[in-house]
Structure formats: C-alpha cells, structure tokens
C-alpha cells in the first residue's frame, strides 16, 4: 500500500461505489414519488456493479481478452484483471434492467388505477 495520492485513489473507487449504493437506498426509502423510488433502485444497482468491477481490478491490469501471441507471452496472463467479476456484472446489469422494467410497468398500472404517483395516497393495502 502506498500513501501517495494515487494509492488513496484505489480506495476512492470502493468509497464511491458504496456511496452510490447508499444514495440509491436513500432514494428508495425516503422519496414519496414512485418514479423516484424506481430510480433509487436503479442507482443502487449501478453502485453495486461499480463495486463488483472494482473488486476484480488491480492497478496496471489489462483487459482479459485473448489476442495473438497471448499464450507465448505468459506474463500477460498474470497482468490480466480478473474476468469473473466482469462476467457477473454483465449478468447483474441484465437482471437489473429486467427488474426496472417490471417496476416501471407496475408504476404505470398504479398511476392508471389511482391517478397519482404519491406513495402516501396509494394505501389500499396499508403500507
């Protein structure tokens, strides 16, 4: 661990990711508008994806892609960043997209049924 500015920047990525997750959760829990709640869910998903990519990264790593001359030069394998988190993020993005789409469809139905997006006025089922 180095105490230069660049060393701290490594941790800044984790800090930012956690901050984005917390902002998203704040939006989900506090905001009154259904749309803002859905946006909050989406924001916390993005923060999580950032965190996962940051976990797989290390300083100076290259993209984990096979290229000509790759196997001869064994050093390039050890210089690759971990490809697994990136694959996981790809899946997580797709799932997050699906959930957001379902949530927005439900928001449209709620708006048609109640004529409002305010969460306090939609309380047939005791929130």
């Amino acid at each position: 661990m180095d105490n230069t500015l660049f060393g701290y920047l490594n941790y800044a990525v984790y800090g930012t990711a956690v901050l984005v997750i917390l902002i998203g959760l704040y939006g989900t829990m506090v905001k009154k508008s259904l749309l803002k709640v859905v946006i909050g869910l989406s924001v916390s998903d993005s923060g999580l994806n950032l965190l996962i990519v940051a976990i797989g990264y290390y300083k100076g790593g290259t993209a984990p892609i096979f290229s000509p001359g790759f196997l001869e030069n064994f050093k390039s394998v050890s210089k690759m960043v971990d490809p697994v988190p990136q694959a996981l993020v790809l899946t997580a993005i797709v799932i997050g997209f699906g959930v957001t789409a379902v949530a927005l469809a439900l928001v449209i139905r709620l708006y048609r049924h109640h004529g409002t997006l305010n969460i306090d006025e939609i309380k047939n089922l005791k929130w």
Partner: protein
Amino acid sequence: MVGTPVLFIAIPLLAAFLIPLLGMIWKELVRIVPGLVLTYLLILAVNLLVHVLAHGPVVEVIAGWVPPIGINLVFSVFSGFLVTLMIFLGLLVWAYSYRFKRNVDYEPALKYFLMLMMLITGSVGIVLTGDIFNMFVFIEITSISGYGLTAFYKGRDSAEASFKYVLLGSVASTFLLLAIMIIYSQLGTLNMADIANKIHLMNPTLKIVSYIFFVTALGIEAEIFPLNGWAPDAYAEAPGPVGAAFAGIVVKASVYAIIRYTFTIFDLSGAFNFLIIIGMITLIVAETAAIRQEKLKRMLAYSSIGQMGLVLVAFGFGTEEGVFAALFLMLNHAIIKSLLFFSGSYLVYNSKCKYIKEVNGMSKFLPVTSLLFALGAFAIVGLPPFAGFWSKLSVMTAAADSNMILIMVLVLMVSVVELVYYLRVVNRIYFFKKETAIEPKKPTFNALVVMIVLGVIILAIGFYPDVVTGVLHKASASLMDKSQYIHHVLSLRQ
C-alpha cells in the same frame, strides 16, 4: 443412467418460451404443454431420487468445466426430495388451474402458464445449483415471475401488492450480490463446495457480515419476520393457485438456500441459535397477526409465514432429528397449505373483499370443498389422525432431545392460537347461517380432483407416516454430512 439433473432446468425453461409459439398453432396447447412437461419431470425426478437413494448423489457438470471453475448441479437425497416435492406441487397447481380463465380470453392464460413455468424453473434451479452466483440468477428468475403472477389480476389492488414485492425483492437482490462479492473477493471462488472447503481461511468479521447479508436477502423471499411485509398482500391479491405455488414452491426454495448457507457453506457456531431466535420471533408474530385478520387469504398467508418460522426453529436445533422434523414440516406445509389455498379460494370465490365472515354457512352449498377445508385446517394445526400431527410431534421430540424446553412450551402455546383461528373459520362454515347474497361457485372438475388427491395424501401420511419417513431420514442425513457433499463435488477434478 436415469436422466440428468440439468433436464429439470432446461426442459421447463424451453417449454416456457415455446408456449407462446405453440399457442399460435393451437390455443389449447398453452394449457396442455405445461402439464405434459411437469408430468415428465415428475417421473424423471422420482426415478432419479430412487437412483440417488441407492447410489449416492449425482453431480452434473455444465459445459465440461469441472468444479470449482464451472457451474455444477447437485442432486443429492436432500435436494432431490425438495425438487420432487416442488414439481409435484407444480403439477397440482397446473391441474387445478387448467380451466383457469378458459372462457374469458386467450392472452391471460398464456401469461399465467408462462410465468408459472418460469417460477418452477427458478425454484428448482435454486435447489439444484452448486454455485452461489448461479443461485442468485435463479432467485431473480423466481422473483421476477413472482412479481408478474402477483400483479395478474387487473381489477384488484394487485399492482400495489406487486410493487411492494418488487421493492423488497430488489433490495434483497442488492444484498445478495453484495454478500456473494464479499465471499468472492476473499476466497476467489463461487463454487459452494469449494467455498465450504476454504471458509476457515476467511476473515471472521467479513464472514459474519456476508452471512448476515445472505440471511437478510434470502429472508425477504423466505418470509422471515421483519422482512415479510410483501407476503400477506401478495398472497391475498394473487390468484388462488398462485398462493399455493408461493407457499409450496418459492418459499421452500428460499428456505433451502438459507439452510444450505448455514449448514454447508458457513461454519459459524452461533448461526444455529440465530435461526432458532428469528424462527421463534417469526412464528409468534405471524400467528398472533393471523388471529387478527379479517380476510381469509391474508389469514392463510400469515399462517404460512408462521409455519416457515417453525421450520427454521426445527433446523436451528442443528441435530439430525431437528433436520428430519423440519423436512417433515416442509412436506406437510406444502401439501396442507396448498389444499387450504385451493379450497379456501373457492369458498370466497365470488366475493369482492374475501372477508372471513363471507364463508358463513357455505357447507350447505359446497359440501366437499368445505369438508376438505376443514380437513386441511385440522391437519395444519396438528390434530392426531392427520399428517400435521406427526411433523409437530417430531419437532417436539427434536426439541426435547436438544433440551429446549422453553421452545417446546412456546410452540405448543402458539399451536393453541393457531387452533383458535382455524376453528373459527371452520365454525363459520358449518354452524353459521348464510347472510350475504354471494353466489357460491361450484369447483371445476379438475379442482375437485386435485383437492381430493391432496386430502387423500394428508390422510395417508397421517395413518402411515412410514411411507415418507424413510426418505426424510436419508435426506436429513445427506444434509448433515457436509464433508461428503464437498467430496462428491470436488472429486470430479481429476
């Protein structure tokens, strides 16, 4: 070879996406195909379970990547028993809702059966998979089809119930992914057996943090007490058979996930007591909430939550008897609660608000349905000649063996509460006069057959519990034997 575990995921997934195309050829295929697929899978599951009982677990490697790198599916006695149970229930739900919306129009039936197949695919996948990220994907498949099924009816407040479920479900998925990444960043593997093998290398603080994230995330799906706000609304607003599918299939899969993490993956010593405490709180809160409910389906939902609490308590004993009792309880809960949802939704079929007081005097109009509801109510409370008695008895003996007298007392007291609110409904069905002008709806032929089959099974297990206890003992032994699980999966690496 008697078939491979991957078929349990591939075939229903393929069928779910083929249903819209087949529907273009002949509309009736939308209804027929799920039944054929589920029948085939049930035969396959029973065959494979018999094979596994004799020869030990089957481990399937996907795409030739041997564990710990690739994804693997494990069909042990424990997971095989749950898969067989889920597919059997799926088949019953299909048979019950075969004529569902038949005379209305084609499109809702298409969506209903598509999402039902996805729900079964996801739940079976959760139970079979041996990879934690793969489990996350299956949990998402299950919950997204759950959101869709909850919002199925357009007229009711179902969108509201479903939105609640979406909110909690996506917070759950965030936590679950976070927990998976904590484990991955520490151990560099996603395979369950490999994690279980290396878990002692992990930083203890991070281990506890990730366990808590796991239990929080899975607790939302498994209806553990402070996280179950979605459940009563979703059960009440979804179509009747979907309530049975939630109680019998989705919740079972989530409880399986919690148990797999607690028993196999993590080696935390306090985790068992933690399960007992959260299970006990869930049981007491849910049963006392159930007694206050005025709507029938909400009451059944709270009762279902309470039963899941009892299952967690039984698992929390951490002994083989405890696991046996919990599995027996899961089996009984699946069949009895399905019967209650099936018959209960006919008792309040034409009423708008589904109040309990609207079942008054229904026994004169729907004698068979009322009788079966009463049978289910007595069975779930644990009265002697029915199936529920044996599972509650085994919970009691397991508690006594672990010297948990206080737990025994509390469970018995809660059973009395349970007895009160179920007998109240049965009393109204049989001894009250019909007041409101709600037209009783006669059950369809399929629904009647399904309910009678469930009633017969409840009586059969009640009189001859030995037909299931053999499998249950082997299943609990297979869960307790952690080193055998690790060995079977990791020995594939040559």
